[in-house]
């Protein structure tokens, strides 16, 4: 087990000026067993005030000059987090969909050595999730299972935690939303210990309007095929 754990919370953001400040200020200041907590915001080419707001609150801020997609933003976040010698890496969405209070619960299995990767599955208060989201997520879970052979009951959740070792083993190519599916594939490929941690589904009109639409499935499918072929060549 790692002593004096450093925790990096990576928040990819794209045009999130309305929510980024509240997400950052709600991040836990103290978690039992963790010595240092810091946030890293990756502004993925926002055209609003996201970067300036994040820059005034977050510990680290980086900016993509154009919008590349969720996968690329996370990749940049991971690179910065590795430079800071973090031991555990957490990712959460910037639209306020995830309750930062659950970060402690999310990383507990990693601190205890029970898992190398944890996924925050939106099981608590699941009724608040609209039916089309449930259908979309169910379809993506099935797709992820069929392609990579690893079941995750919320494969598209943006709230995840990784140990340093797990992240070093993973090779991610995705630039967009398909990153969520690819992460599960990498867990399987590298035989990493994964645990699902129940978190609340926290939806607002704002976050529903910002999330990925079910039609993205086709796009994700094509991109995942491209990633698989890249790995095999």
């Amino acid at each position, binding site marked *: 087990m790692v002593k004096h754990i450093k925790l990096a919370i990576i928040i990819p953001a794209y045009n999130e000026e309305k929510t980024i400040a509240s997400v950052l200020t709600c991040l836990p200041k103290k978690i039992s067993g963790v010595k240092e907590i810091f946030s890293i915001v990756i502004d993925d080419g926002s055209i609003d005030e996201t970067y300036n707001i994040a820059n005034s609150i977050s510990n680290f801020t980086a900016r*993509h000059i*154009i919008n590349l997609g969720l996968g690329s933003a996370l990749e940049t976040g991971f690179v*910065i987090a590795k430079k800071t010698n973090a031991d555990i890496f957490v990712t959460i969405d910037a639209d306020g969909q995830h309750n930062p209070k659950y970060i402690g619960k999310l990383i507990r299995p990693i601190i205890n050595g029970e898992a190398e990767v944890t996924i925050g599955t939106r099981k608590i208060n699941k009724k608040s999730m609209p039916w089309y989201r449930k259908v979309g997520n169910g379809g993506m879970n099935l797709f992820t299972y069929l392609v990579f052979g690893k079941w995750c009951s919320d494969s598209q959740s943006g709230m995840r935690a990784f140990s340093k070792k797990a992240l070093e083993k993973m090779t991610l190519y995705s630039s967009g939303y398909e990153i969520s599916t690819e992460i599960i594939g990498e867990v399987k490929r590298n035989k990493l210990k994964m645990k699902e941690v129940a978190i609340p589904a926290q939806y607002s009109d704002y976050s529903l309007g910002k999330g990925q639409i079910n039609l993205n499935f086709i796009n994700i499918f094509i991109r995942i095929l491209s990633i698989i072929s890249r790995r095999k060549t």
Partner: protein
Amino acid sequence: MKIFSQIIAVFLGSVVFFKTYYDFRKKRESIAMFIFWQILWLIVIFVALDPMPFYELMRKSSHYNIGAGTFLGIGFIFLLFITYKLYAKVNELEYEIKSMVTKLALKDFKK
């Protein structure tokens, strides 16, 4: 079926016509490329609306008795190849842009 292909040809031709015109007006397209696309798609529209001169031309110019169907089949394979080339090129460019943007972000990131 014929009317269906004619509608598609006119629709796609109009899309290309207005898009290239818009790009040309915005100075994103050179005059040479603008004229090239206009002529090419005008030919496509004319052939779709009245294919007989095209069939006649095929019949007269072909020494190997190649029919219009064979000609279109070869054209389709060629288009698939072009599509693949474009896909590969876009992938390559996307990768290069991603590397460049990430490098810039890492260079300028603030503590």
